[in-house]
């Protein structure tokens, strides 16, 4: 069903205001797919009917559900593999080189969706830096409460664990419960989940050694990308590392970050010249 321009504009404004995500008009076809379950769940006969329901109510949980439903939540364990190879072979050894053992690593997965990214980092830490893992703090944030709730449960289906997760790690760190796989508490406890909308001002947090901000900036407009990167720059230690998605660069703030080749992957560090 084609949405009337007025309905599409309403939804576009709602999503942009509350998540900073820009819905490209060329991707209008996604609207029906993503909102379909909510349309049925709330007894509406059609998508326009559901949008009328949203517009007839003051801003509330239903609007936030609709915004969350429009976000792309696709993620999988060790997604794209190269960033994780870079993390274990270059970044972690560099950060741990001269660090006192009691000074733990601070890592932030800034758009963690259903948790596969921060849990991949946690497993990788246990595998490649077992001595540093107990002192490490992994913060994982997302703006979608339902995704965070699923992430906190740390229970995944067969399709989730079948993709990207080495079988050796699946057998070592998961408990099988029928068709589900539950992450062992020792790994799940390494990650703290918090709700955070990257597009609005963030509460104060300790400076980070590593920030994963992958496949997020591509959904923002130029101004929002610049604002988010400015805050990311402040949140990162001067010797910290920023991991972006394969289609992303800090081009909106390009003098603030320097690219660093870590094997086949390009990560970023705060530029020594840029003011902080």
């Amino acid at each position, binding site marked *: 069903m084609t949405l009337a321009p007025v309905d599409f504009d309403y939804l576009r404004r709602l999503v942009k205001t509350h998540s900073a995500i820009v819905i490209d008009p060329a991707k209008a076809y996604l609207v029906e797919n993503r909102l379909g379950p909510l349309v049925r769940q709330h007894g509406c006969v059609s998508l326009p009917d559901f949008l009328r329901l949203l517009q007839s109510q003051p801003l509330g949980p239903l609007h936030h559900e609709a915004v969350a439903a429009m976000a792309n939540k696709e993620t999988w364990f060790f997604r794209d593999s190269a960033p994780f190879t870079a993390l274990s072979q270059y970044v972690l050894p560099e950060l741990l080189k001269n660090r006192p053992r009691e000074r733990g690593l601070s890592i932030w997965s800034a758009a963690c969706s259903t948790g596969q990214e921060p849990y991949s980092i946690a497993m990788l830490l246990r595998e490649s830096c077992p001595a540093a893992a107990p002192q490490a703090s992994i913060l994982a944030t997302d703006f979608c409460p339902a995704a965070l709730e699923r992430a906190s449960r740390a229970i995944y289906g067969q399709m989730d664990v079948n993709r990207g997760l080495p079988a050796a790690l699946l*057998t070592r760190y998961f408990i099988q419960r029928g068709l589900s796989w539950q992450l062992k508490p020792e790994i799940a406890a390494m990650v703290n989940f918090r709700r955070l909308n990257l597009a609005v001002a963030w509460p104060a947090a300790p400076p980070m050694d590593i920030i994963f901000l992958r496949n997020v900036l591509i959904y923002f407009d130029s101004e929002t990308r610049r604002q988010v990167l400015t805050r990311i720059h402040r949140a990162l230690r001067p010797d910290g590392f920023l991991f972006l998605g394969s289609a992303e660069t800090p081009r909106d703030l390009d003098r603030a970050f320097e690219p660093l080749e870590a094997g086949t992957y390009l990560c970023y560090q705060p530029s020594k010249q840029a003011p902080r």
Partner: protein
Amino acid sequence: MRALVVDDSASMRAILKRTLAERGFEVAAAPSGLDALRMMAQQNPDLVLIDWNMPGMNGFDLLREIRRQPSYAQVKLVMVTTETNKAEMTHALAAGADEYIMKPFTPDVVYDKLRVAGLPVPYAESIACA
């Protein structure tokens, strides 16, 4: 890269052959463990995808047989199976499997698992740009 698909199901052999061919593999297929052993010498594959449940020599016995031969030490062996129990998975890894794919799967699952196993599987975008 050369791959050998071993599965007693003709449709599964076809699916896996197509999946691998789309990423540039040269693919041969065998309907049984014994056929696979005969074809190993001729095909000299870099990768063997092995179903577990097959009549005659099953996939686990084939895995052990291949791993027993030093000339095949570098060949990547990946189980592709409906056996989804952790015990079987652990057993296969201990016997020398490099990775384990549970059926059903999507092509992306196969490509990601092969990358995990250390094979240079190109991404779709790089093929489109080539």
